[in-house]
């Protein structure tokens, strides 16, 4: 109780801080009211910045290397940013909050990428596909009991909860006898850990992801060729809103140009070890 003056200073500082928070709240509310339904591409260009929501836990597309974002997304978006003449800023969020964030207008589009499926196409606008997303099996290195996808019959396999990959695994499992037991994981890294620990014998995920993992840990994991799933593709995601159309068209133009001049193939080779052929547009998803 010896320093009343100091205590007043603290109280004053707290009052000031409270005022600051209140002011910024009001200011951001005012901002939100402006510029609604304005063309998204024009807005991005005016701001000089394209904000992209993603999750930095999706190697080889988006991950962390020495504390910095690395992967294929960053390199594709660098080309997109160059073409549009804007800076690209990524915002890292847990995947379940990425699509709600897009709909709440927190960012202009989503990297991901996500598998282009029928259900998702109804709600979102996908870009031209950037990679093959067909689902394949990952097994423990040297597991002789699994040499083709059908060998998972009657065994315990894992996949990610609420993913398009899981849906494909479930469909494939129905064709096998006896049916495999499917363990669902919140994220794929847990399923890889369980595969490494021997709690499950295989993980079903898109080929680019497990091929990258097997390349990173060649003495632990191995990919079972060929993929078992229906041919599907990975694309970036935007909204179907009328004001987002110009931006999505512009992004498509860059990706398709990259496909035709070999830049995309070079990136695929760098990150997946092999180039993949993808169509310019996916008008109807197979799954």
């Amino acid at each position, binding site marked *: 109780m010896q320093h009343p003056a100091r205590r007043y200073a603290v109280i004053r500082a*707290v009052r000031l801080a409270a005022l600051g928070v209140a002011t910024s709240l009001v200011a951001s509310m005012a901002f939100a009211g402006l510029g609604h339904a304005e063309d998204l591409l024009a807005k991005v260009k005016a701001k000089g910045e394209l904000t992209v929501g993603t999750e930095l836990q999706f190697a080889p597309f988006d991950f962390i290397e020495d504390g910095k974002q690395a992967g294929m997304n960053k390199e594709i978006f660098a080309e997109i940013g160059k073409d549009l003449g804007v800076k690209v800023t990524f915002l890292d969020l847990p995947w379940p*909050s990425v699509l709600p964030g897009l709909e709440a207008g927190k960012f202009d589009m989503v990297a991901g990428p996500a598998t282009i499926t029928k259900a998702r196409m109804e709600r979102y606008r996908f870009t031209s596909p950037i990679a093959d997303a067909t689902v394949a099996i990952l097994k423990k290195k040297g597991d002789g009991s699994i040499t083709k996808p059908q060998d998972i019959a009657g065994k315990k396999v894992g996949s990610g909860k609420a993913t398009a990959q899981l849906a494909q695994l479930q469909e494939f499992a129905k064709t096998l006898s006896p049916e495999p037991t499917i363990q669902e994981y919140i994220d794929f890294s847990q399923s890889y850990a369980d595969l490494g620990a021997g709690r499950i014998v295989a993980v079903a995920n898109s080929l680019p992801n497990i091929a990258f993992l097997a390349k990173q840990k060649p003495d632990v994991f191995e990919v079972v060729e060929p993929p078992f799933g229906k041919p599907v593709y990975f694309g970036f995601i935007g909204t179907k809103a009328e004001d987002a159309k110009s931006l999505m068209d512009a992004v498509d133009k860059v990706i398709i140009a990259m496909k035709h001049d070999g830049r995309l193939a070079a990136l695929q080779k760098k990150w997946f070890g092999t180039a993949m052929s993808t169509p310019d547009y996916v008008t109807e998803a197979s799954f």
Partner: protein
Amino acid sequence: MFNTTIIIKSLPLLLEASVWTVVYSLTSVAIGFCIGTLMCAARLSTSPAARRVSAFYVSFFRGVPLLVQLLISYYCLPLVGINVPSSVAAVGTLALCTGAYITEILRGGFLGIPAGLIEAARMVGLSRTQILTRIEVPLAVRFTLPSLVNETTMMVKASSLISVVGVLELTRLAQNIATSTFQPLEIYLTAGAIYFVINGVITLLGALLESRFQLEAAR
């Protein structure tokens, strides 16, 4: 199997992220303390309206999971035109949530102040605000310090949830590194150790403050 090089390599990054954990949680506790003081004064005031507002505030922020509060503030408020940036949503929600708990902690402390003391303060001509800031809050803080330290350590841990609104903190970075290096065990153990140290320091500071208060009381 256990890889120490990945720990050494990731430690500077994890420490950098833990600075954000500390900044976000302590800022929220500081703002939450101010909210808690006001709400506690309202709860104990003679105005029925103020009492009702305070009771509703506490029951809402204590009754709804913090994760849901964060999702509402970031993803649902924009639908009604309130679009706050990630950092504001994070600090605001954490502060409002911890403020509700602090309201109740302080209420316990306020109720422990002898009525005669307040009457005496009124007699010597102190205003209502002066009584609150110079007598009631300092005394209530002394009475409730262990619970307040407890709440602060809870907030340090609860701040691991703010990544859902796009704020980078210790847990999020640990997850990112773990999934990028495929070495979850080492990274999560390191992150856990950092949380343990942060809360150890907070507990220690609380203990120091407590012994200082005891010295003052003995004087």
